[in-house]
């Protein structure tokens, strides 16, 4: 239960870290250490035996939460090393990405979130983790850097499989950008786990925007813990567009997503069939809550606005 020997360095800038990552270690695996709440247990079990550990915890530039405005609206920018607990208590996250704010308390326990980072969870890409599914629902953009340059990858193209992402070996996730939630949007996150703080048996995230007459103009539905990677239910989303959501429709949409768009495995925690059952219920509930929140948001803006 102790890590195998490794070399350790703690750069203070992103450039320094990228240089180390590019040089690497020809003999051994190189790992970036973020919050260490998944990597260090794996090292203690010796499932991971990196030869070189590049600790990102001294890089201040990666740890900030920022907002900016462009023509389209506000953008929330989370440095990859923002602690999950910092995001959980951030007023900017609550205001601009309420779905993320709602999901964060479900990420393990306070003691883990105090150390675990937003970027670390995404780069680790555990299909049972909350944040990948949330980023998929939020259409987040992942900013990746290497000594070769910088690129942005949509969340939909970032998660490739079990613990697998679009990150090249010399690349680092440096920031996540999220477009601010629309004022007339409703969202909801919910998961089912055996005990508080456990990995979820299944979870769902939903976002809905409605017209003034209640017609759905935008929908996102994503799942965690129901496949090898976080899943977006594109067909279910299509079924909602142009419709006025009601209980029967939401039930049909949720059933479709759970039957056709996910591929849950069986393990000691839950069977595939039970996960599908949970996914259907969670999809229906998160969509229903998102719809009622979107409806309430409309009411609020109608009262606040002059006329329309």
């Amino acid at each position, binding site marked *: *239960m*102790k890590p195998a020997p490794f070399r*350790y360095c*703690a750069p203070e800038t992103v450039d320094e870290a990228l240089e180390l990552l590019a040089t690497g270690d020809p003999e051994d695996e190189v790992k970036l250490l973020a919050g*260490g*709440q998944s990597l*260090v*247990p794996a090292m*203690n*079990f010796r499932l991971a035996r990196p030869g070189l550990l590049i*600790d990102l*915890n001294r890089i201040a530039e990666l740890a900030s939460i920022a907002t900016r405005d462009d023509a389209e609206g506000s953008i929330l920018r989370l440095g990859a090393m923002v602690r999950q*607990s910092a995001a959980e208590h951030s007023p900017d996250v609550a205001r601009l990405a309420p779905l993320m704010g709602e999901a964060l308390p479900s990420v*393990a*326990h*306070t*003691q*883990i979130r*105090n*150390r675990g980072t937003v970027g670390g969870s995404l780069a680790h890409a555990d299909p049972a983790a909350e944040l990948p599914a949330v980023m998929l629902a939020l259409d987040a953009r992942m900013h990746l850097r290497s000594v070769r340059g910088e690129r942005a990858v949509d969340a939909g193209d970032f998660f490739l499989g079990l613990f697998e992402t679009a990150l090249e070996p010399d690349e680092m996730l440096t920031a996540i950008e999220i477009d601010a939630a629309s004022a007339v949007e409703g969202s909801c996150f919910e998961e089912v786990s055996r*005990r*508080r*703080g456990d990995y979820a048996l299944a979870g769902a995230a939903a976002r809905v925007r409605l017209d003034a007459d209640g017609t759905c103009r935008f929908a996102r539905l994503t799942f965690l813990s129901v496949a090898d990677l976080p899943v977006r239910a594109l067909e279910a989303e299509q079924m909602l567009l142009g419709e006025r959501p009601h209980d029967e429709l939401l039930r049909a949409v949720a059933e479709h997503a759970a039957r056709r768009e996910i591929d849950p495995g069986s393990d000691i925690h839950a069977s595939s069939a039970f996960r599908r059952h949970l996914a259907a219920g969670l999809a229906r509930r998160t969509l229903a809550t998102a719809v009622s929140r979107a409806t309430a948001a409309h009411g609020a803006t109608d009262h606040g606005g002059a006329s329309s």
Partner: protein
Amino acid sequence: MLSDFLRHELGLTGTHVGCEHGVCGACTLLLDGDAVRSCLLFAVQCSGCDVRTVESLAGQRAGEGAATEDPLHPLQEAFREEHALQCGFCTPGFLMSLVPFLERHPDPSDEEIREALSGNLCRCTGYQNLVAAVRSAARRLRAEPGEPDAAS
């Protein structure tokens, strides 16, 4: 690991080591004021940080053997009175998780208390006494603000 460094290099054996993969919470301590698992931290990472272990709570200096006259921390008093520990192995982790919790939630609901306890495992008490102890500690802390803050 930070947990091993504290115990083996510094002789601070108040921090207990249980699962060594971040699940049981026995090794919880405060790093710059936040409760964290010391079995998931390398000691070198904490250079320059403020590390607070269970030894800091009662003001009893480590290594001196006999307890001084310093009183127990109100949380420790409450644990003793409400029988919130039996074998005591998990206790330091619970205490160090609860210190920042009670600072931020001076008047917690039972729901909040249960949530705060959920990150630590106890195999003796069954948690009910832990809930009662946290309730009682919160009352004590509200009654006498300004907890003794011993340097460790």
